[in-house]
């Protein structure tokens, strides 16, 4: 899968929807992101933010609309193929390989887009390149010293960092981050913000964030979802002062 020219749109959602029975969790969302764009998605609990991510990542099929990723129509494309196009995501509820070590977690992420994942004739320990890359990824989120630790024994904060590490391992061009600071202390949140700000500016980032301050620090554009619909979309400063947003968001949101 060859990459299209870098000036094409990274992600384009055209009127996508997702119904769970009678419930429209995502209701006609349209959105476009250019390469390198940093955008936050805000919205109260149950607004459909996580569902929107699952539609983009291909874990759930849309019930209507179309999705384009780097110029490819991926509306019916499976999740692993979308990953191969340069898409990566993290999870709101930590989703790692709990009984494997931090290093093994990263190794799995590193080899995910390589043909070597089908090699079964020699031990993984022989693939020095994968180890170098996995350790570099661990190091980039500050977990180098924990490489031999089983992930279920890591602290919540460390697990959230590993979430990011796994997503970064495949050198994605579009990163979906679902509440990376969920459950973190203010100090840990600040570390996470620093980590996100240091990422390669060429990577487009779509981030769901309940903490407005984090959202404004990491992104320049904001999309607000409410009952599955986009109710505001624009530059951070404009959206912040939007009365509808203040009413919905500050009414239902966190401290």
């Amino acid at each position, binding site marked *: 899968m060859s990459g299209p020219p870098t000036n094409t749109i990274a992600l384009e959602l055209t009127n996508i929807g997702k119904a769970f029975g009678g419930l429209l969790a995502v209701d006609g969302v349209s959105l476009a992101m250019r390469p390198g764009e940093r955008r936050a998605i805000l919205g109260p609990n149950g607004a459909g933010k996580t569902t929107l991510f699952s539609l983009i*990542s291909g*874990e759930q099929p849309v019930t209507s609309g179309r999705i384009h990723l780097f110029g490819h129509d991926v509306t019916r494309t*499976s*999740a*692993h193929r979308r*990953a*191969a196009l340069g898409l*990566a*995501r993290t*999870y709101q509820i930590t*989703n*790692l*390989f*709990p*009984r*494997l070590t931090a290093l*093994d977690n990263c*190794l*799995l*992420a590193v*080899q*995910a*887009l390589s043909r*070597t*994942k*089908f*090699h*079964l*004739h*020699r*031990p*993984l*320990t022989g*693939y020095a390149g*994968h180890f170098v890359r996995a350790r570099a990824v661990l190091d980039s989120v500050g977990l180098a010293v924990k490489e031999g630790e089983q992930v279920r024994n890591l602290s919540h904060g460390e697990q959230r960092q590993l979430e990011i590490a*796994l997503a970064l*391992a*495949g050198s994605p061009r579009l990163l979906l981050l679902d509440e990376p600071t969920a459950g973190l202390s203010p100090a840990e949140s600040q570390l996470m913000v620093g980590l996100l700000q240091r990422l390669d500016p060429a990577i487009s980032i779509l981030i769901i964030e309940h903490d407005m301050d984090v959202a404004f620090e990491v992104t320049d554009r904001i999309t607000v979802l409410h009952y599955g619909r986009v109710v505001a979309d624009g530059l951070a400063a404009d959206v912040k002062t939007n009365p509808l947003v203040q009413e919905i968001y500050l009414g239902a949101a966190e401290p």
Partner: protein
Amino acid sequence: METFIRRAPRAAALVAAVLLLALPPFVSSFMLSLMTQALVWAMLAMSLDLLLGYIGLASLGHAAYLALGAYSVGILTTRHGADFWTSLAVGIAVAALGAAVFGLVALRATGVYFLMITLALGMTVWGLANRWVSLTSGDNGIAGVPRPRGLPWDVSGALPFYYLVLVAFAVAFVVLWTVVHSPFGKTLVGIRESESRMRTLGYHVWLHKYIAFVIAGAAGGFAGVFWGYYNGFVSPADAELATSVEILLMVALGGRGTLFGPVLGAFVIVLLRNVVSIYTHRWLLILGAVYIGTIVYAPEGIIGMARDWLKARARAPLRPAPSP
């Protein structure tokens, strides 16, 4: 102490290997036949462990591959005078083909549904063994399977045959060890731990499961070939549900997710079965009790218990605060 934890399993494996190599000339013929049987079951249990221990899929149809391998030997040797290598190649191929077909059906499901579907597929093979009389001789089974022909040595005696099975076991062990330690093997554990994460990382999860399913089937067929030769007789009993249950129990009892566990489980169950049968016919009842006992008291099997014990031992000397 760290090194003790790491060395203990290796030392145990070494002792076991030496015993398997050196003991047989000195044991009774009954004991020798038990050891031969146990090695065949150990191969079956290891192959099932690829699914149960590594991917986390409990299959209740693994006897199907044992039967496919064994029937291949039975039919080829008694009706076509096939030699060892032909029987072996066909036995593996037929079992792999069976798994390739069954996998298409079974891998649509997970958990209990996977268990039910593999059970049904296993019963299908059992049904065929019973009903396709022209091929399988039905209930009567196929008798008179000769000892392997076409090998450089004569393996008609019980002792040389034991060593043939030991070599086969070593081959199966090395092959499966390589697979589970390979990059591909790591993906199986990843699928066990989180299928959804594997998918979004870029893995075609179904394909990895399918490849492992076929490998497990082929390895089961490999064991089946030696089972056919060992018994000299093949019958629908080889494909029975009880047989699948036994293989599953061997893996669970020994410790899934390690290759040593299933081997240990196979030896324990084979010995137990033969000791128990002296006293009672209620083998299945006892098997059930062992299964429940394993789930309740040792969910990670004997190997898991040993591992915990070693860790506790390693920690124990640290408890009293070191005085200057």
